C-alpha cells in the first residue's frame, strides 16, 4: 500500500491539514506517527483507513480488510460488550467468538455482560481495540491505542502488535506517549506543520527538541502491592525505573 503526494483539507478553501504525504506501507511493518495535538495524525490515519478521501494525490493498494480503533470509542450505544463484539464480528463475516482470544488477553472477560455506556473510559477503549485486533485485517489503524489503558495492557500491547505484524498485517499507529519505544523494528515518523518527516533513524526515540531535556531523578513512594504495576506503567512511558528494595 502506498500514499502518493496525498493532501487533505476538510473544506474547500479551508486550511490544509496534511500536505504532500508520500508513504510506503509494506506488509508486516509497524509505522508510528507522532506529532503535537492538531498536527494531523488522526486525519492521516483516517485517510490511511479509507474513512476520508484525499483532496489531492492517491492512495493505492489498501488491503480489502481494514481494522480501525478510534481515539475515542463510541460507548454510548445500547449493547453489552459481548453483543457489540458479536455484531461487529458478524459484519465482518467472522464467527461470533472471533474476539475471544483478544478479550482474554486484554482482560475484558469480566466485563462481557456490562452495557457499553457503563464502561470506564479505559475499558471502553479496550472494546475498540479488541474489535480492531480481532478483525483479521491486513491493515490495522490504531489512533492513540495506549490512551487510558491500564499498565498490564499497555505493557502487552506492543508485543501483540509485533505478533500481528509478524503475521503479515500492516500496522499504523499514532502515539504521543512513546509506548512503542521498546520496539526495535518500527518505522517512526513525525508530523509537523502538516507535513510528514521520516522515517526517523532507529534509536532516535525523541524529537530533536525533546533530546535536549535534562534527566532528573524522581522518588515515587507507592504501596508494595502496586509497585510492579506502577513500574511497568512508567517503563511503558519510556522512563527508566530503579527499585530501592531490590
Amino acid at each position, binding site marked *: 500500500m502506498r500514499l502518493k503526494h496525498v493532501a487533505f483539507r476538510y473544506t474547500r478553501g479551508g486550511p490544509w491539514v496534511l500536505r504532500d504525504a508520500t508513504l510506503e506501507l509494506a506488509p508486516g511493518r509497524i509505522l508510528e506517527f507522532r506529532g503535537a495535538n492538531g498536527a494531523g495524525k488522526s486525519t492521516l490515519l483516517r485517510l490511511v*483507513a479509507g474513512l476520508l478521501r484525499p483532496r489531492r494525490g492517491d492512495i493505492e493498494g489498501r488491503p*480489502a480488510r481494514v481494522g*480501525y480503533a478510534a481515539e475515542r470509542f463510541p460507548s454510548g*450505544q*445500547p*449493547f453489552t460488550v459481548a453483543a457489540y463484539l458479536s455484531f*461487529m464480528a458478524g459484519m465482518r463475516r467472522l464467527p461470533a467468538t472471533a474476539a475471544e482470544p483478544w478479550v482474554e488477553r486484554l482482560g475484558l472477560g469480566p466485563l462481557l455482560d456490562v452495557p457499553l455506556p457503563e464502561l470506564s473510559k479505559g475499558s471502553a477503549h479496550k472494546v475498540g481495540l479488541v*474489535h480492531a485486533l480481532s478483525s483479521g485485517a491486513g491493515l490495522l489503524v490504531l489512533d492513540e491505542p495506549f490512551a487510558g489503558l491500564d499498565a498490564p495492557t499497555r505493557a502487552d500491547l506492543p508485543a501483540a502488535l509485533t505478533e500481528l505484524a509478524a503475521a503479515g498485517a500492516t500496522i499504523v499507529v499514532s502515539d504521543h506517549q512513546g509506548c512503542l519505544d521498546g520496539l526495535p523494528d518500527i518505522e517512526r515518523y513525525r508530523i509537523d506543520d502538516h507535513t510528514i518527516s521520516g522515517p526517523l533513524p532507529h534509536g532516535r526515540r525523541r524529537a530533536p527538541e525533546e533530546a535536549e531535556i535534562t534527566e532528573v531523578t524522581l522518588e515515587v513512594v507507592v504501596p508494595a502491592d502496586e509497585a510492579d504495576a506502577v513500574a511497568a506503567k512508567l517503563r511503558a512511558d519510556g522512563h527508566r525505573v530503579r527499585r530501592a528494595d531490590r
Partner: protein
Amino acid sequence: MTALIRFQVTGYVRSQRALYPMIVVACFVILVLVQSPGQEHGAALTVGTFGDIAAFMVPIWGWTARALLDTAPDVQADLSALAVGRRTTATIAGLISAYGMNVALAAVMVAVPLVQAFAFHVGGPAMLAGVALQPLAAGPATLLGAWTCRAVIRSPALSALALVGGCLVLLVLSMGPLAWLSIPMVGWLRAAHHDEGAFTAGFPGLAVHLVLWWAAAAAVYIWFRRR
C-alpha cells in the same frame, strides 16, 4: 450487510428514539382508526382511509428514517462501514434498516382499516391497492428522512427544518402541474376518496410514480454518500 441491518435496527429499537413514532402511531390508531365509519358509507370511507394514513405517515416515516440513521454515533458509522468493507454497502444497509422499520410502522397503522375493509366488504383489488400503497409510499418517505440525516445535514435544527420543509414542499408540489416532481400524495388522496374503482384504476400509475421517485432519490443519495 444483514449483520449491519440487524445492528442498526437493534440499536434503534433499544434506544428511546423508537418510542416516539410508535407512540404517534398508537395514538392515531386508538383515537382515530378504531372509530368505525357508519354502515352507510363504510366501504367508501375505509378506502379513503388507506389514502389518508399513507399521506399522514409520510412525515412520520421520514422522521423515523432520520432518527434511525442518526442513532449510531459518527465513529460507529465509520467502524461499521469498515467492517462491511464499503461505504456504499453501509449506506444501503442504513436505507434498508430505515425502510424495514417504516414498513413495520405501516403494518401497525394499516391493520385496523384492513379489518374494517373486510367488515364493509371492500373489493379485493381496492383492499390490495390500499395495503400495497403503504410500503410503496414508505419508500420515498424513507429517502426524504435519509436526505435529512446527520451524515447529510450536520446541524440538528437545520435537519429538522429540512424534514418539515421537505414534506410541505412535496405536498404543495403534488397539488399542481409539477406533481410529477413530487411524491403523489394528493394524487392518491383524490383517487382513494373518489371511489373504489377510481382508486383501483389509478393505483398502477401511482405505484410506478412512487417507484420511479424512490429509485431516483435512492440513486442520488447513495452517490452523494459515497463522495
